[in-house]
């Protein structure tokens, strides 16, 4: 067992707690501060999207986080029980169309090595985010 499971409310007030947990997960995996910061950004975008899009802003729904901790590798599953959307329709705006919003998915995909949406059996979506340590990237 080297996994941490966490359930947090779909409330933006808990975003700093999610980042605190993820920071420690990245530290256990041995990541440098710069890579850790990128992961924090990707995870924030992912959880924010669950709150806004899967739960329509309702703050009292459930988000499950499964954090895998092994050396040189970060993995987080973000599980919601909300509104499921065809993953092929989840995409950011074109970057040259300057308007507020529409950047989150682009940021996640730029930063992480794996961004994968899957429907849950019981409804809702599981989003898996993965990142290899920069040094381990070439060798894997």
């Amino acid at each position, binding site marked *: 067992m080297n996994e941490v499971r966490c359930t947090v409310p779909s409330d*933006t*007030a808990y*975003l*700093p707690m999610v*980042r605190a947990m993820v920071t420690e997960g990245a530290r256990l995996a041995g990541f440098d501060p*710069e890579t850790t*910061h*990128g992961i*924090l*950004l990707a995870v*924030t*975008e992912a959880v*924010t999207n669950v*709150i*806004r899009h899967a739960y329509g802003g309702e703050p009292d729904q459930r988000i499950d986080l499964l954090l895998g901790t092994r050396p040189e590798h970060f993995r987080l599953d973000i599980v919601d029980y909300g509104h499921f959307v065809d993953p092929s329709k989840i995409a950011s705006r074109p*970057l*040259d169309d*300057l*308007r*507020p*919003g529409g*950047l*989150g998915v*682009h*940021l996640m995909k*730029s*930063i992480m090595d794996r961004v994968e949406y899957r429907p849950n059996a019981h409804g809702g979506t599981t989003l898996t985010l993965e990142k290899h340590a920069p040094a381990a990237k070439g060798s894997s």
Partner: protein
Amino acid sequence: MKVTQETQGTAAIFIVEGQVDLHTSPELRSQLRTALNSRSSPLVVDLNAVSFIDSSGLATLIEALKSVGSYGGKLRLCGLNPDVRKLFELARLNEVFDLRTSRAEACGP
């Protein structure tokens, strides 16, 4: 997050500290709104003490950039640390915003 307002000449300066995310960006937006309503220029946002900012923070700044443009004013950002600068680059906003190296430079003409 904490936002402190200062003025220097015609410049309205917003010193942002801490974490900017969907929980805190509405507070930043409402503070910027007062300066936008009084058509201040330049609007200076000092990000030096920001430890974290996400796309909701960028959205707030893009909104302000568009508003300031509507009355011919200027928005300038300063104090971007390497992590924050990286975010602007990933979003290809480093060319869109007027990024200054210091607050003094951002307040100038």
